[in-house]
Structures are given as C-alpha cells and as structure tokens.
C-alpha cells in the first residue's frame, strides 16, 4: 500500500515534469526564429504552398489548440509525423534508438570501468595523485569534436582496424563510445575521488584500519559500497547527458542516432520530431532518476531516515 502510494507520488511528479517539458518545448519550437514555412518549403514557396502546409499540420490554429491536439494524440501514442519524411516520428525514433542507446550504454560502461578505478586510485593515493588528477582533468579539456575528428581521421587514414564512421554493427560503435566516454570518464573519476575521500574519513574506515585489514580489503568491502551513491547518481546524470550529448559524436562518426535526428529536425523546424525527441529524452531522464532512487535505496539502508542522523 505504502509502496503503491510512493509509486503514485513518483508517477505524478514524473507526469508533471513531462507535462512541463512538453509545454516548454512546444512553445520553444514555435518561438524559434525561422518559421516552418521558410525553412521547410524554402524561399521560393508560394503563399498557397505555405498555407497548404500549415493546414496539413494544423499549424494555422492557435498554439493552444495545437498543443491540445498534440497532447491528445500523444496520449493515444501518436507522436505525429515528420514534415520532411512524412513518416511517423515514433518509427524513426525507434529505428534510431539502438544506435544511441548502445552508444550511451557502452560509454557509461567504459566510464564506470575506467573512471571508478581511476577515482579510487587518486583518492587512496591522495598525496601522489597528480597523474590521476591530470588524467581525469584531461577528459574535460579535450572537446568531443576535436577528439572525435582526430580519431576519425587517424583511424580512417591509417586503417587502424576499427571502423571510423557509419553504422553497420556494434563494432562501428567502439570508437564513438570511446570518444564519448572520454568526458564521462573524467567526471566519473572526479566524483568517485570525492566520494571515496569522503568515505575514507568515516570512522568505520578507521575502525577497519585499526582491525588490521589490508587496503584492498577495505576498499572492496567498505569504501566502494559507501562511495557508490554519488557515483550512481552521477552515472544517471551522465547517461542522460550522453543520450543528448551524443549528437556531436553522432555527427562526426556519421551515426544515425537520435541526437543527430533531433538536431537536424531543429534545424528544419520539424516540430513533431523535436517535440517527440525532447519528450523521449525527458522520459529517459526521469526513468533513470527513478532507477537511481531505487538502487540507492538498495545500497544504503539508511536512506529515508531523516535529519536525525545528521544532527546527533
């Protein structure tokens, strides 16, 4: 019962966020300069053509009416059709989801597998962490498009064994994932470092040291679990970020993913696509946050115990 109530609360909050996102994005795409008419039909289009297009997509109605129609359609699972391809937006998003999804997944995996150990290492060897600090700083200091372009160039010119562009199979995603994870590794490492350093000053770590446990044992059994919460929270944020931020990598590696799809749609003011894409991103974000709450609840049994702990 309580569980159901909790879920209900979360669902309401999620719905509110999605509604907010939808209103904002709906208003936003219509506020963007360069109307659909000039953009999609081009400068040569006649007034009749513009009127016809507006009529076909209901763009001549007031924004409120349009929003109402759109919302009603969305409720039925109909996200509209792209003005460019005239195909349902959902089917195209669905077709592109695997690319972006895998790309994000791999990047998050890499970020975790590299960033967490790196972060732990730099935290434990706090005094000799210069290399680690520089390494993790490097990730933020090399923009994705630079790294991406460089990798694409090198791997294509010197045939280094991995495909550098286009999407055929999972192998095509190796390099993009690496490039994309570069930034994520660095923040994961930093967050892990902060979290681990926070844990290292906790009395139970002192207690473990006092028992004569080995450093590795302490890290494995006590530090990792306790440092996991901020890291897990961050990973969700990163996942959401990567999902949206994959676009530059998608462009440079010419991957047919969602990021480039939505950006292209923005460029053409293809309203339905932008709206659906943003709503998808928001949904993923919300679902991820929900997952994080659950996972964090599993890791830390104290959660939900209120202020008390902090006061005494």
């Amino acid at each position, binding site marked *: 019962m309580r569980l159901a109530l909790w879920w209900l609360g979360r669902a309401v*909050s999620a719905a*509110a*966020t999605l509604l*907010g*996102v939808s209103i*904002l*994005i709906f208003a*936003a*795409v219509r*506020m*963007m*300069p360069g109307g659909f008419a000039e953009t999609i039909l081009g400068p040569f289009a006649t007034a009749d053509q513009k009127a016809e297009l507006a009529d076909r997509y209901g763009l001549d109605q007031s924004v409120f009416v349009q929003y109402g129609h759109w919302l009603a359609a969305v409720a039925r699972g109909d996200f509209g059709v792209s003005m460019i391809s005239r195909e349902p937006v959902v089917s195209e998003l669905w077709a592109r989801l695997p690319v972006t999804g895998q790309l994000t997944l791999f990047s998050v995996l890499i970020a975790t597998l590299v960033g967490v150990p790196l972060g732990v290492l730099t*935290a*434990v060897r*706090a*005094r000799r962490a*210069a290399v680690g*600090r*520089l390494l*993790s*700083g*490097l990730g*933020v*200091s*090399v*923009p*994705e*498009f*630079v790294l991406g*372009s*460089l990798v694409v*160039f090198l791997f294509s010119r010197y045939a280094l064994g991995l495909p550098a562009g286009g999407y055929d199979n999972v192998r095509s995603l190796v390099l993009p994932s690496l490039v994309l994870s570069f930034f994520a590794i660095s923040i994961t490492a930093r967050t892990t470092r*902060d979290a681990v*350093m*926070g844990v*290292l*000053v906790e009395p139970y*770590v*002192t207690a473990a*040291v006092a028992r004569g446990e080995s*450093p590795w044992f302490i*890290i494995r059994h006590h530090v990792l679990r306790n440092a996991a919460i901020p890291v897990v929270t961050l990973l969700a*944020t990163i996942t*959401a970020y990567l999902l*949206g*931020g994959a676009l*530059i990598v998608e462009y440079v590696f010419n991957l047919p993913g969602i*990021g480039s799809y*939505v*950006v292209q749609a*923005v460029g053409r003011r293809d309203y339905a696509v*932008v709206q659906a894409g*943003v709503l998808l*991103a*928001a949904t993923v*974000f*919300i679902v991820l*946050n929900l997952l994080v709450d659950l996972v964090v609840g599993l890791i830390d049994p104290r959660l939900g115990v209120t202020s008390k702990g*902090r*006061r005494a």
Partner: protein
Amino acid sequence: MKDWLTRAGMVCLGLIVLVALASVVNLAGDPDEIVGPRLAPPGPGYWLGTDNLGRSMLPRIMEGIATTLLLSSVAVLVTAALSAVLGIVAGYRGGVVNELIMRLVEVLYSFPAIVLAILVAAVFGPGQLAALASIVLVTIPLMTRLVRAAAVGVAQRDYVTAAIISGARLPRILGRHLLPNVAGTIAVQVTYALSVGIAVEGGLSFLGFGVQPPQASLGVLIQQGTTYMTAAPWMITGPGVVFVVAVLAINVVGDGLRDRFEPRQARSLV
C-alpha cells in the same frame, strides 16, 4: 595546504589572464587583419602561422583567450548567482518550493543544448550575449542541484535553527546563514562550471552558435583548427594547447579548493 600541482595550476591561470590582458591592447597585432598567405606555416610576421583567411594565429589566439575567459567567467558568475538563489531556496524551503525548482531544473536538463542555443540566439540576437546565456542555461542545472544538496545540509545546522527560534526572517536566514555556508560549494563548483563553460562555448561554435566572426574565441579557433587539422596543423596546436592547459589548470585549482574546503583529511589505508 596547497600542493605543487595546485600551485602550478594557479601560475598557468595567471599567465593566461596576463595574455588575455595583453590581447586587449593588440600587443601582437590586429587579430582580424589579413597579413599573409592562407594556411601559411609559422614564419616571420606570423609566428604561429596563418589561418584559412591568411590572418596571423598569434593575435587570434590571444584574442581567443580573452574572449573565452571573459565569456565563460561572466557566464559562470551568472550561473553561480542564479544557482545560489534557486539551490538555497529549494534546499532550505523543501516541500513544494523544492519540488517546483527541482522540476524546473530537470526540465532544463532534458532540453537539448542546441534548442536552447537557437532560442537564446533568437531572444538576444546571435552573439556574445546569446553564447553567454546558453552557457548559463547549460551549466545551471548541475550547479543548482549541488548547491541545493549543500543547502539541505546547512539548513539542518543548529545555528539555522537558532536563527529561526530568534524569529529571523527568510532573507536573513538565507543571506546570513545559508549563503555564506554554501559559498564553499559554490566556489568549488564554479571552477568546474568554468571548464564546462569553456567546453560548451566550443560546442556552440561547432554548431555555429558561438561568438560572431571575426571575433576569435578558443572554441571558434579550435573548431576551425579541427577542420584544418591535416592541412594546417598549426591552426589547432596553439589554441588546443592553450585550451587544454587552461581547463586542466582550472580543474586542478578546483581540486585544490575542494581539498581546502574539506577539513577532514583522509587517512592512509596503510
């Protein structure tokens, strides 16, 4: 306790600021003037080579540093100010206010940066102001969340309770008690946001929403340099090195700050 790395980072930042100041008086020449052949390697008159319009890279890099530094620091200050208000209010007030602010932040999170950039450019007209606003919008969600987290902790403190018992009004509690005590968090986050801001500025240039030509910024220069990576490597080397050094330095200083604000020292596990 400053280690050598933090100190080195500070020195680098100092140098970079000096270069930025020097560019204001065009110490190394006019960054917009076409001085030589296109894509010329380093030579007399253009010591770091020329770009694809035959402009000398040296003054352009200097201008780029100034632009980017100014842009991202102003943006980050704005972000810090807004995040401070939103985060503190959300963290202290909790309940509905918190929900509202955090949802708003979440909404921003789910917005693609490019849509934000276009919209902002539409409102302010393309240019520095728009780039600035874009950076702010992109960096605000994370910082607000972190400030809020810190504020929640501070709001529990006995001195806040004491102020409430004394009958202090909200502005006093927020301004005198919460703000100064989350300032550390903000200060640390500012350095991170600064490096993110610089990166966002670069990303905006990649998408064509950065500062307006002919003004140089590190983002613009690196974006162009990337295009000409093979034909004119000097176009990426200079700005690239400056960029990496700047962001690394900021990060390292941020780390140092963080360690300063964390009074508890981690024990060695040995």
